[in-house]
């Protein structure tokens, strides 16, 4: 069973998308931990470590996705979790998708992406905690 951490970094309070995704991933058989709002990159990495998740999904609609994602990646690295794939979703302009991928983000799902595509991507992440 794939263990998924879904997180909202920064001050943005828009979490409709991430909450819908959480319920859909649970229905698809994943174990989902949702952090709730206003998380710092340090707290997200700590939650990933404590919960021993297979994959980390970040949702941002504040426009600060490049900076916040870079910080989460470096915190995950510091926590020894650089092998866990990171997914970024939210209000992500097209021009920023390659920038995020260069940082090491495994996949970017901009607003408007069909949920089926996102669920399929998560389903393909191999679960380790078996």
């Amino acid at each position, binding site marked *: 069973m794939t263990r998924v951490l879904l997180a909202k970094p*920064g*001050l*943005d*309070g*828009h*979490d*409709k998308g991430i*909450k*819908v995704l*959480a*319920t*859909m991933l649970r229905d698809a058989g994943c174990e989902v931990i*949702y952090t*709730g*709002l*206003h998380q*710092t990159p340090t707290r997200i990495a700590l939650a990933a470590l404590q919960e021993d998740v297979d994959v980390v999904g970040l949702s941002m609609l*504040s*426009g*600060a996705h490049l*900076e*916040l994602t870079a910080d989460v990646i470096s915190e995950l690295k510091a926590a020894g979790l650089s092998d866990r794939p990171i997914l970024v979703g939210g*209000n992500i*302009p*097209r*021009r920023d998708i390659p920038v995020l991928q260069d940082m090491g983000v495994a996949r970017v799902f*901009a*607003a*408007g992406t*069909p*949920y*089926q595509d996102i669920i399929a991507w998560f389903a393909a992440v191999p679960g380790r905690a078996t």
Partner: protein
Amino acid sequence: MPAWTSRDDITEFGVSHTESGIPVRLSYPPGETSPLPPPGEFPYARGLRADGYRTRPWTFRQYAGFAGGTETNERLRYLVANGQSGLSIALDLPTQMGLDSDDPRAKYEVGRLGVAIDCLADMEALYDGIPIESISSSFTINATALVILAFYVAMADRRGTPREKLSGTVQNDMLKEFVARGAYMYPPAHSVRLCTDLIEFCVRQLPKWNPISIAAAHMRSAGATPVMSDGFMFANAIAYCEAVLDRGVPFDDFAPQLSFLTSSYKDVFETVARFRACRAAWAKIARDRFGATNPRSMTFRVHSGGDIDAMTAAEPINNVARMTLNAFGAALGGVQSLQVPCYDEAYEIPTEDAILNALRVQQIVAFESGVRYTADPLAGSYFIEALTAEVLGQIEAIVDEVTSTGGAIEWITDGRMQAAISREARLWEERVADGREVRVGLNSDKHTFQNDQELAVHQFDPDAVEAQVSRLSKHRASRDSARTAEALGAIADAARQDQNVMETLVDAAKAGATIGEISGVFANIFGDFSAPTGV
């Protein structure tokens, strides 16, 4: 499941069912509903004013703010020069969350989605040259509404503008922040206490100010159906009224200053029915639940915030058609104030061109469409009258259910409201996924995402952030620190002793206190909070 939650077996949204899932008949016969009292008469379903928009149209109020006070001031003046009749200030997330621009937690978000306001000097830069005695301002501000209002009042005091001349709105609706939008800091009970302090202050000092804008729109954005969001809005309104009554302020003293925020959505007919039903619902709550005798206590004065979520990134110019229907629906519904979303809304905060276009859409609807001929133009339509009655019944059912099972604060604290909204969000996404909710240019197979044009979008300016942080550091160095500390101490005393804190905040604003320092005082006393997510 109660009738006001969606069924998941509806196949034709926008054809056989309204946006909120209300079934629609092929045609409506005459004689099923009795005629409503005329516009300007209880229960005001047909409008608050007998003359509708004849004397003047609704207030054109586009939402604007970015970078620092000076940059936003330029945008506000541009909008006023182009015929905007009211201001609506977008504040950045750190300002909304009580963080100064130099706070590490504010990093990356200063001046990004709104203007950064750290202290009185920033408010003065924002309003430089703008006559606050003659133009109203609306602030989308909640957890720090008291601080922002204190800066505004302190600015007026320093300008010599009498407080009773100030007109405007602070959103100050904390309850909905716990179920949608998420800009909360303290636990619900303390949050409501601060909302109530602000309302009480305005009743005594700022008679033309709306001390709260009780909001449905954010709950809709979080997934609630439009009608469900209206029902929860009234449940929240009742909780605020009870809190103010507990202070010993009579209902007829504060109710005329309450205002509301619920939006026009893509379903034009349901939108019209909703605004009509909301007016009747509030009039009845005010009279029958709270015993209002002043007719002004019964008037549902509303700002429509626009169907932001309907804006697509795909083929963005199509959004102008959505905006036009949005404005037309709001006008047919008789709103007092309107914002329409901008065509680039799905990308970024609007460019100057995009916000001017949104203002022009409002003006075209107001001055060219004929919507102002007569009050409540759709009255008497068999369909509209039946739909109004149905929506009113659903709103009343929601209000009854919430108030008879603990009330809004309990529903929010234990997550019942969040869970109901999350369920609707999920159902809506499933309908978009399988095409039952058609979004032209996005999910309908005849109009696939073809025109992936790159729009010229708003560019975030990191230099403006640096300038903001440097102004703040100069401000800290130049103020009389002992006076600032004393003023902050007075806030803490008032907060601990359950006195109204508002006037201590105005004093602190004048003593150079920052939004982070003032919010820090409350955080120390009230603690922080994490709301149930509903999933």
